[in-house]
């Protein structure tokens, strides 16, 4: 695929790094020559210096042959305009733009094909807010991701010896809950389990079900773990865009305090947010944290603009007794450090945003895709097209479908219903099939499986 990335900032750079492959041809546009030089030294890609919304610059970047444009400059307006130009002048089929200001999201028809033709809008703030909400719903999970607009969810859980399912057959664990274990990672090897698989300590299980099933699994899981009560009290550090968005999402359901160092921003946040206690002060201030009963806090979430501050405050909060801590960082390089600092989870907005566009990077109609298990596995939501003649899966039961290795179908979302995989469940056109691929080399084979005949209208 020929892809043009507009903007060589943190996001553009991470994006370029994760899209580089033998089959992708990448061109990055930015005004800053030094940033482009660094990129070119590190990666096999081409660069063009210039204004990302100028037609001549886009032309030099190969817009006339590009399949996809991803506009992630620091300016919302440049990103939207570039998509418009990519559509009108260069007929680029897929246009993705990062738009930060919530102002633009309030008007739905703004991004229609005949208005501002953007196929996918990336709003890092709302993606981060959704991500944190999912963590709060299942804090013990290594990872929790959604499919089909949240109708289905997949959670990954690590089984410790202290925990219930260890030593049991999968079929005898939670027999009354409608879920499916799509894969188990054991000693760095992945396996597709069946009902007779016995769960061992150290296993990482990938469980799929609807939100109701997830609540049941969580209840069972947290009961077996000490220190694992539900989250009620939340402290947020940082009253910027992300902090305010999070506070307003969480304020109604949880007891939320927001700490902001800047008096003006603190005042603003307190005016905008109902149901949230806004405190003006530094989250690195020990006294402040102790006075605000940090030891009674179920979740401490550091989302200031400085990633170093976030790491330090999260560490401090943990030391002072917060049950769980989350820190926002921009660089994936911090992931390992966070582990040593005993920070429970990291929010990496660039990674969250990249995963929001993964579906578009697959061959065929993939609505959503998520990297799992540190990127070695991937879960796809494939949209089924065709009929019995033009598709290899339509009209076949799951038992009849020969899946590639290391691949399992976990569920089918049909309309509003989540149908957990079962050998006599038949695939229909229009279904969204959730597939877990635990070895990424099998992805092309999975994409081929869902292909329809070239002559299918």
């Amino acid at each position, binding site marked *: 695929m*020929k892809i043009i990335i507009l903007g060589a900032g943190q996001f553009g750079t991470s994006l370029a790094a994760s899209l580089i492959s033998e089959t992708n041809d990448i061109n990055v546009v930015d005004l800053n020559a030094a940033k482009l030089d660094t990129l070119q030294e590190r990666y096999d890609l081409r660069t063009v210096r210039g204004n990302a919304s100028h037609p001549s610059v886009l032309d030099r970047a190969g817009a*006339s*042959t*590009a*399949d996809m444009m991803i506009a992630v400059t620091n300016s919302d307006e440049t990103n939207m305009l570039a998509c418009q130009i990519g559509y009108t002048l260069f*007929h*680029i*089929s897929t246009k993705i733009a990062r738009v930060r200001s919530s102002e633009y999201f309030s008007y739905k028809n703004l991004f229609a*094909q005949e208005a501002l033709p953007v196929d996918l809008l990336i709003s890092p703030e709302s993606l981060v807010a959704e991500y944190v909400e999912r963590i709060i719903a299942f804090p013990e999970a290594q990872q929790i991701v959604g499919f089909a607009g949240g109708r289905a969810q997949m959670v990954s859980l690590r089984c410790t010896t202290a925990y219930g399912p260890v030593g049991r057959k999968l079929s005898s664990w939670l027999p009354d809950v409608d879920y499916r274990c799509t894969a188990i990672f054991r000693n760095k090897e992945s396996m597709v389990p069946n009902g007779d698989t016995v769960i061992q300590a150290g296993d990482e299980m990938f469980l799929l079900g609807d939100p109701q099933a997830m609540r049941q699994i969580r209840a069972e899981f947290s009961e077996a773990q000490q220190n694992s009560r539900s989250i009620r009290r939340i402290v947020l550090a940082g009253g910027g865009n992300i902090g305010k968005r999070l506070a307003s999402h969480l304020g109604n359901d949880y007891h939320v305090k927001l700490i902001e160092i800047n008096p003006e921003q603190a005042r603003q946040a307190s005016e905008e947010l109902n149901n949230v206690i806004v405190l003006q002060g530094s989250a690195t201030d020990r006294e402040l944290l102790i006075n605000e009963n940090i030891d009674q806090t179920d979740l401490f979430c550091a989302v200031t603009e400085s990633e170093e501050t976030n790491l330090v405050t999260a560490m401090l909060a943990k030391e002072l007794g917060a049950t769980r801590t989350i820190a926002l960082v921009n660089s994936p390089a911090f992931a390992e450090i966070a582990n040593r600092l005993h920070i429970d989870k990291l929010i990496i907005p660039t990674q969250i945003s990249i995963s929001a566009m993964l579906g578009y990077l697959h*061959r*065929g*109609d993939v609505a959503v895709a998520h990297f799992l298990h540190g990127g070695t596995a991937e879960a796809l939501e494939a949209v089924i*097209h065709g009929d019995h*003649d033009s598709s290899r899966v339509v009209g076949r039961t799951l038992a009849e479908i020969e899946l590639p290795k290391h691949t399992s179908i976990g569920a089918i979302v049909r309309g509003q219903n989540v149908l957990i995989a079962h050998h006599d469940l038949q695939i229909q056109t229009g279904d969204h099939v959730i597939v877990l691929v635990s070895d990424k080399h099998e992805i092309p084979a999975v994409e*081929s499986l*869902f*292909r*329809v*005949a*070239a*002559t*299918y*209208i």
Partner: protein
Amino acid sequence: MPWLKPDRVRCEVPLSSKKQLLEALVKLLITDNPGMDPNAVLNCMYARERVSSTGLCNGVALPHGQLPNQEHPVAAFIQLTKGINYDAPDGRQVDLAFAMVIPTEANGEYQVCLSGFGDKLRNADFSARLRSIKDPAHIYTLLTAPE
């Protein structure tokens, strides 16, 4: 294939990408069809490609799409000077492309026809002949000849 017209056939066209090929096909398709919006034609073909590539085998592609308010299908053909990446099932590059715009309201009426025509196009002997001819009129005759 009654929907092809002689002036919608081109030979030895130098193009370097699937996108350029689709754009060139759209230009041919709207010839004699002033009512057709080129953007709408291109978008309907993109929409079909997103579902799954229309690459047949043996270097042939059959890009198509559905467009509302058309009386009948419209077809065009391009022979390229060299192959381009098209994500075909056999992995081969594509240098022959037959495009068709089908009325949305037809409800599957043309499915059998398109499937049959696809079989003919992907036939190794037939595609080799299409490749060897460098004259649009001759290719037109070959494509529209009865079975």
